[in-house]
């Protein structure tokens, strides 16, 4: 068969032909290289950005994100009221919101969805996104079992009330997250228990959603095809007829598919290719900042890193600009704070200083003049070329500026995660992407009881400030608390910020209405394809 295909092809003459993208442009089919096979497209179980980019085509929450600036746009809710104390939200659902099986989307559906997400047995990883609601955390942890006590209530089929335990000014920014999307609980029940992760309701032919598209095909490692929904309330504004998601996980292969005109967009390309595209084909790449910070964590439980002067010295003797411009080279911004600048209007004023002379002084004060007697530390990172290059740069900078030695140690992804989780490292690579637009999504990770802390660092005042900020609705007061908290962080330095990630996305000129944003949120309603531009 291979030979016959070869012969046929040679005989028939495989000359210049239309690319898939050119054909797709005319059919309004948006072809996306989505960089991996989604683990699941259940909004309450599929958790990464790969899953997200598919889920937002199939489901819609109370509000959706404006892709230009992430501001809230009406979704299933046409309007909403917030009580004076900021602790009660009332969403008024639109009459014409329908599931793809024709049933209306009701307030009851939302309550049942949130009930499912918080069921302990489901083990949903993003259940904590609902924790601002009264008693949501207690229910999720199994401390209470009566869902009536949780702050979600359907006042009537078209009115949903959400009661919060404390004002959460960024709630609308959380609500655009997949975990707040409704799921068709009635349909899920037809395929098995609603709290069973393995319930096959999301397979093609089963899935019922309420988004602008419906699932047509899902073949593992091959593709997912979604088509315009005939029941979506805003269908007159949906201009794409279909979206084709290719799960190619090799960056090289995906980039070749882009070049051969098989896909409109590729989520990410390798750093050396970024430099190439930016220089030679800037019209095909969009390299935009994300709400994600690249950093190194210190294990503060062991000497010499239990001494904050040592941590400060290490943090101050790094040239971040040299790293982003000559090592990582994908247009990243040097980071001097944990929270990326201008996160929902918050920019930390306390910043890491870059001052090798002062760093040497600090190291001397800590008992290691000119690096003398400083033990050899180990730098841990997961096995990725770019992480290795950055680790080597740090190694050199510390040798040059502080005259100390660090060794490099790379581990396979899961081994590395395990080492980090057990705080079994000296200095370990890390990264954190914000879930929503608020400094709390970054600063909370270093609270004492956060599972993502991993450094052994604990500071009562820091914890108190983060809690105080979470308990007030006044933005000015909150941000003032976060400023103080971040100042503690920069003084104590349990982590060293290195840079703010960018997303080097390849995208064809025919794609119109696509916008870069900090959370890389897609809103396919805005997109259409212009065949004259390819």
């Amino acid at each position, binding site marked *: 068969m291979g030979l016959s295909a070869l012969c046929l092809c040679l005989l028939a003459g495989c000359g210049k032909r239309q690319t898939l993208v050119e054909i797709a442009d005319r059919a309004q089919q948006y072809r996306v290289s989505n960089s991996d096979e989604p683990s699941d497209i259940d909004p309450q179980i599929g958790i990464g950005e790969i899953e997200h980019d598919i889920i937002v085509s199939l489901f819609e929450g109370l509000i959706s994100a404006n892709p230009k600036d992430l501001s809230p746009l009406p979704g299933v809710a046409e309007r909403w009221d917030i009580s004076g104390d900021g602790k009660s939200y009332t969403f008024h659902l639109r009459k014409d919101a329908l599931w793809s099986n024709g049933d209306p989307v009701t307030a009851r559906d939302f309550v049942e969805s949130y009930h499912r997400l918080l069921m302990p047995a489901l083990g949903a990883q993003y259940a904590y996104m609902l924790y601002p609601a009264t008693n949501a955390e207690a229910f999720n942890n199994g401390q209470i079992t009566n869902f009536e006590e949780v702050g979600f209530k359907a006042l009537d089929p078209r009115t949903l009330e959400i009661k919060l335990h404390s004002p959460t000014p960024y709630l609308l920014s959380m609500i655009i997250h997949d975990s707040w999307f409704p799921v068709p609980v009635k349909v899920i029940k037809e395929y098995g228990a609603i709290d069973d992760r393995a319930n096959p309701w999301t397979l093609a032919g089963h899935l019922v959603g309420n988004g602008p598209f419906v699932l047509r095909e899902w073949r593992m490692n091959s593709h997912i095809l979604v088509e315009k929904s005939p029941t979506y309330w805003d269908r007159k504004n949906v201009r794409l007829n279909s979206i084709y998601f290719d799960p190619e996980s090799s960056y090289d292969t*995906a980039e070749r598919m882009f070049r*051969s005109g098989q896909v409109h967009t590729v989520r990410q390309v390798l750093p050396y290719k970024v430099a190439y595209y930016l220089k030679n084909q800037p019209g095909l790449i969009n390299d935009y900042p994300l709400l994600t910070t690249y950093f190194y964590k210190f294990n503060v439980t062991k000497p010499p890193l239990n001494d904050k002067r040592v941590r400060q010295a290490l943090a101050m003797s790094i040239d971040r600009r040299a790293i982003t411009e000559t090592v990582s080279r994908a247009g990243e911004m040097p980071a001097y704070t944990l929270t990326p600048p201008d996160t929902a209007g918050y920019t930390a004023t306390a910043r890491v200083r870059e001052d090798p002379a002062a760093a040497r002084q600090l190291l001397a004060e800590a008992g290691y003049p000119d690096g003398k007697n400083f033990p050899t530390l180990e730098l841990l990172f997961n096995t990725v070329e770019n992480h290795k290059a950055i680790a080597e740069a740090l190694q050199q900078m510390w040798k040059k500026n502080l005259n100390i030695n660090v060794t490099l140690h790379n581990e396979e992804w899961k081994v590395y995660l395990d080492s980090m989780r057990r705080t079994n490292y000296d200095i370990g690579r890390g990264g954190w992407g914000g879930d929503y637009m608020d400094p709390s999504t970054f600063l909370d990770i270093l609270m004492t009881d956060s599972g993502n802390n991993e450094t052994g660092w604990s500071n009562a005042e820091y914890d108190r400030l983060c809690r105080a900020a979470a308990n007030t609705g006044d933005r000015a007061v909150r941000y003032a608390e976060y400023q103080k908290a971040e100042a503690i962080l920069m003084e104590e330095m349990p982590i060293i910020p290195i840079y703010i990630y960018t997303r080097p996305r390849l995208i064809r000129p025919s794609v119109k209405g696509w916008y870069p944003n900090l959370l890389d949120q897609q809103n396919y309603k805005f997109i259409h394809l212009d065949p004259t531009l390819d």
Partner: protein
Amino acid sequence: MLRFIARRVLETIPVLLIIATATFFMMRLAPGGPFDTEKQVSKEVRARMEAHYGLDKPLFEQYLLQMKHLLQGDLGPSFKYPKRTVNEIIADAFPVSLELGCEALAVALALGLLAGMVASLKQNSFWDHFPMSLAMLGLCVPTFVMGPLLISAFALHLDWFNAAGWFFPRDRVLPALTLGAYYAAYIARLARGGFLDILHQDFIRTAQAKGASGARILLRHAMRGGLLPVVSFLGPAIAGLLTGSFVVETIFGIPGLGRFFVTAAFNRDYFMVMGSVLFYAVFVIVLNLAADIALVWLNPRLRFE
């Protein structure tokens, strides 16, 4: 012959048991688990997920339970893809690898046998040196170089093919060539050796003395013996070809079994690892058995013993 087959089949039972046991314990000894993610889940969530899949039970109990399920043909659920079972994933992905493998095998046999036979007939001439040099090159160029080279030339420059994918008949051409080339080179060298060996035997000389034509000698008299080395190579080679190549599937974006085989281990998808390892093991055993039977049939000096 039946006794021979029965004995070989019985022999596979302890082999599979050892493979399954080693896989189980090696996988569990590897640091990191299926639910380790960059954003840590809470201890409660992790505990619930582990309980859901029975990973909270004592290790030996888990082992016995899995062996019991394996005996019933139930390979278990996938952790990474919660909506699918390992049986479903293999049933989905194997036909793709099988098709690619058959096409690559066709390429390998056609090119390899032709080159090998011609080279043995025209020993030490251009028709020997040229294909054998090519074969040497084919052996030396790894598929991860060959694949991108072919894509560069035929997909990106000449635009005859897509750079990756598995939808249209023409999508089969480059992967089959890439995967087949290595085996073609191997087969060419083995076939040349095999035929040279046979062509110098007395019975061939007798045939030549009787005036038989070159083609008749090759096809009628030398074929059986000349193929022997190729056949014994084909058993494991076919198993490797048909169960999927991670490299070729990755380069060409093919939804085959080879990728799962590797990514399952990275994901610590325990049941998926076990399922694909056992599937591969059974395949290798069956094909080796088939090769042994074919060898006896081809070589009258061997007997089923």
